[in-house]
């Protein structure tokens, strides 16, 4: 009964936004990679530098109260790229500023991003154990 009354998200509306904006963010990432390469940054650091630039940009847009308005239309388009990670760090930092710099900003920064780091690292350690045990490296 509850299911019948609750409309699902408008699929037709959410998918193009996610694809388009997610794609554009990656395209921007690619131009940044090429740009850093053209500036003479060492090849293997270009993707990292590009990702960090996107992180800074997403954090800035979060501060300007713009990110959540883009995310409303983009959905996973802003969530899944590294911009989603940056927003997950910056938004709580900003929000809990009123509770102080240490227990507000410092602690709450990892409210959403903390689990991402924890389980990313845990998966990495598991993978490391496997390749070390079986000599797969």
């Amino acid at each position, binding site marked *: *009964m*509850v299911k019948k*009354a*609750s*409309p*699902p*998200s*408008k699929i037709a509306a*959410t998918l193009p936004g996610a694809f388009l904006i997610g794609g554009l963010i990656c395209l921007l990432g690619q131009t940044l990679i090429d740009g850093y390469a053209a500036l003479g940054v060492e090849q293997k650091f270009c993707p990292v530098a590009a990702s960090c630039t996107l992180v800074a940009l997403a954090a800035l847009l*979060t*501060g300007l*109260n713009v*990110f*959540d308005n*883009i*995310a*409303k239309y*983009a*959905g*996973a388009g*802003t*969530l899944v790229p590294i911009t*989603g990670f940056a*927003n*997950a760090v*910056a*938004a*709580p930092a*900003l*929000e*809990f500023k*009123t509770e102080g710099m240490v227990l507000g900003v410092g602690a*709450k920064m990892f*409210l*959403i991003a903390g689990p991402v780091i924890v389980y990313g690292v845990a998966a990495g350690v598991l993978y490391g154990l496997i390749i070390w045990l079986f000599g797969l490296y």
Partner: protein
Amino acid sequence: MAKKQGKQTYLMQQCLTVRAWAAVGSKKEGQGPLASGFDLIEPDSTFGQDSWEKAESRMVSLTVAKALSNAALTYEDIDCIFAGDLLNQCVGTTFGLRDSGIPLFGLYGACSTMAEGMLLASLLVDSQTVRRAMAVTSSHFCTAERQYRFPLEYGSVRPPSAQWTATASGAVVLEEGNQPPYLRAAAVGTVEDLGVTDQNNMGAAMAPAAAATLRRFFADTNTSPEQFDLIATGDLGAIGSQLLVELLQRDGIDIKSRHTDCGLLIYDRQKQDVHSGGSGCGCSASVLGSYLLPSLRDGKIRNLLFMPTGALLSPTTVQQKESIPGIAHLVWLSHEKEGIL
């Protein structure tokens, strides 16, 4: 002394009137269809404060002050106030009333608090224990988001079943008197839980509680929906409203033609991005003050069952995957002193 009738209903024995009221809202409420009925629309949702919690408290004190000036009364004229909000330890209320000097009964009934406050205030006035009592509730979108969901700037996506917490507050002043609107009866709700666990679908979680209270009230008073012009639930939103109508239909009670929901009245769902409608303690309280009470006074509505619903969850119970219990309290407001019963 109010007379208890049936299991959960209290009939007032004195002639209780809502002497004055006030509704305060913010930007989004000011863009809604009821904007002109509000006493004050503050477009800046910080209310000039440096934290959201302080903003909500400021809103509460403004609402109480407004209701008192509408009643041509001062703080000293109020014997007690029943008040609550959605925040942990009800700090919106307590900090908002800190300087008022009014004896305070702090309440928590989630979004049903306005009816709970009016119910308790009316019992106290009806028993002639106190002469004049107030009820006030508030909710603020930003404080609710940061307590129950995500930081405001976090780009999460709200599903269509989600509701929008109103940044609003409403207050009433109750006393014995001879001017409509009158408060005729009230019914206290029971905690109902049909196992809905989705925090983004609270209307559905609260619909069973609304159905239970309404069913009980009609049975206790031996009345039927046709005898009332309007049954206004608090914040079931579009989905919960549909469920309420269906639940009651099963018991042979048809409220479809006279049911409305404050969450659907406060915003224009076509033009405003509020998904399933408004919610929050302040939603029903401000709709009461901006639209329902003025209509009752003018006789545009003659008999109203005002029944806000509350979702009794906390972030902890949600994380522990508990289902969401609901509660609904009912207040019968009327343009007439007598009749129906």
